[in-house]
């Protein structure tokens, strides 16, 4: 197990390094010159040259990469070109919003998705099962920015139950924090609930047909124990894969949802910095998102070994 983890960690380091190269290179491909954004269209060539020198844009590529990478390794992702605000600090200011949003949506997707999937599977072919199949098809097909707008219109504007935009820190009142997150989290989680419910149902239905489930029943175990302890553990393997994919998906989708609900998170920071060609900010946020996805994939891989001891050998 320890050797597996060490090997995976080594791959992870290499992977993140490759990504850092890609992230750095990506910025070179973005059209436009950041100095134009900073100085406006009427800047003199002298001003442009001076700014390029002070930003280090004229240094050799490798040197610029090394400067960025060594900074990043020490937690310094550079400073914003627009505000000369440190990127790390900008991320730190906003990460709470995105983490609240994504983690809440993930917890909601997993809990609700599993409960629905399991209930549908144990009464396969029943009314709840058929409702789940229909509901999950709709949930998967529905674009979530559209769902967001519907929720805003209905629960926010019509009923006035929840605020339709903005964010409140949990420190300023937990009730307020929950209320502000309610609609965005539901919007973000809808697709995840549908995907996880569908996968959990399919996987559990297959597992319940296996011989060892019959053995568990022949031992006199209760249905709760047969499903919860025995069937579900094997059935979780494909579900965990889907959950891992959901984390990446939720991060991606949070960009849209943060835009719809005007939440000041990483997603909106990323969008704003792309429009501003704020290169250090783009690099920092993209690198962060990648590291999160890579780490989640590692956790997913490691969980296979626990769920299926046979997989731990390889």
């Amino acid at each position, binding site marked *: 197990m320890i050797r597996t983890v060490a090997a995976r960690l080594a791959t992870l380091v290499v992977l993140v390094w490759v990504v850092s190269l890609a992230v750095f290179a990506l910025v070179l491909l973005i059209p436009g010159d950041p100095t134009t954004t900073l100085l406006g269209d009427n800047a003199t060539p002298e001003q442009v040259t001076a700014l390029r020198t002070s930003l280090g844009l004229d240094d050799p590529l490798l040197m610029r990469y090394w400067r960025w990478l060594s900074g990043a390794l020490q937690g310094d992702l550079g400073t914003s070109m627009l505000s000369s605000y440190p990127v790390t600090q900008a991320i730190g200011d906003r990460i709470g919003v995105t983490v609240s949003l994504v983690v809440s949506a993930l917890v909601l997707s997993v809990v609700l998705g599993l409960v629905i999937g399991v209930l549908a599977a144990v009464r*396969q072919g029943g009314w709840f099962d058929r409702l789940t199949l229909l509901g999950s098809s709709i949930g998967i097909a529905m674009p979530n920015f559209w769902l967001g707008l519907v929720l805003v219109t209905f629960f926010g504007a019509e009923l006035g139950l929840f605020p339709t935009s903005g964010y409140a820190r949990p420190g300023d009142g937990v009730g307020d924090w929950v209320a502000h997150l309610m609609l965005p989290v539901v919007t973000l989680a809808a697709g995840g609930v549908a995907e996880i419910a569908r996968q959990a149902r399919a996987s559990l239905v297959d597992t319940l047909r*296996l*011989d*060892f489930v*019959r*053995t*568990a*029943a*022949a*031992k*006199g*175990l*209760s249905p709760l124990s047969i499903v919860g302890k*025995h069937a579900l*553990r*094997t059935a979780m393997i494909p579900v965990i894969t889907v959950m891992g994919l959901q984390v990446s998906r939720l991060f991606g989708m949070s960009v849209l949802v943060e835009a719809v609900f005007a939440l000041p998170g990483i997603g909106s920071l990323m969008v704003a910095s792309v429009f501003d060609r704020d290169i250090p900010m783009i690099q920092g946020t993209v690198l962060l998102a990648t590291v999160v996805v890579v780490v989640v994939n590692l956790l997913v891989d490691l969980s296979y070994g626990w*769920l*299926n*001891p*046979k997989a731990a050998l390889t």
Partner: protein
Amino acid sequence: MNAVLEINDLVVEVATAHGPMVVVSNVSLAVGAGETLGLVGESGSGKSLTTLAVLRLLGTSARIASGEILLRGPDGVLDLVTLPERRMRDVRGGRIGMVFQEPMTALDPAYSVGEQVAETVRRHLGLGRTDAWKRAVELLDRVGIPSADRRAHDHPHHFSGGMRQRVVIAMALSCDPVVLLADEPTTALDVTVQEQILTLLGELRDESGLALLFISHDLGVIADISDRVAVMYAGQVVETAPVHELFAAPRHPYTRALLRCVPSPGSDRLATIPGTVPTFDALPLGCRFAPRCEHAAAVCEGAPIGLDTVAATHFARCVRIEEVVS
């Protein structure tokens, strides 16, 4: 004889698109303490469904339509057909243990074999974790798992088929059942391992006075372990007799044909029974074996045939026994 397990007129139906279809027709069997009843028949003869019906593990597509399944114990007689599900769970793995055909898939891949045995012990005997684990190790040792205290921590994929079957047997016997149902327990194993498992089951039966219901399609295995044999064909018991009598003087044409199919040294031709088992939606009205029977006559076809007494403990479902034997 006071049977520990007695099945009377059991009827099992399977749901089909055209309504229920009877796949086990009025089967009656009885097994006493320390006795082994061998249940033999081809695939699809209803022998597995009969056993699963005893534990009410038929699943969603099949159900017990009528009949009774009596389990005798010190506290009286239970009818397993009508027993509430909650009390049925105490019977499964407690009073009645079951060993399955496929040891490779019968165990949960996610838990150690020790835990899978200990779990049953905790469930029925109410022991704590430590005591249940100790008992699991003892049981694994008893069924012949080498260095059981160490191996109990291993997961099923570390064991061979024969060893896994030993684990399943340990599990089935963990709570001192009075009845053991063994559904083709040796079929998936190598011949040498088969022999070991048969010996083990015989020993365990003799030690604890278990009533053993042993299902197999293999007459050699049945001859080896059984005291009495019931032969099933197309959902019916067609002959039942003490093992020596059945092999020495079979009465039903199907039993006789089956015995001829056992390869013997010296003959290089393998006998077969002409024709195929009828499907359950097109069963003959009279004798179900008649279409394949070399002795069939008009009397065989008109009406269902009952089990006739051949001797005190020998019954056969055939109206032309005299002609068949001569």
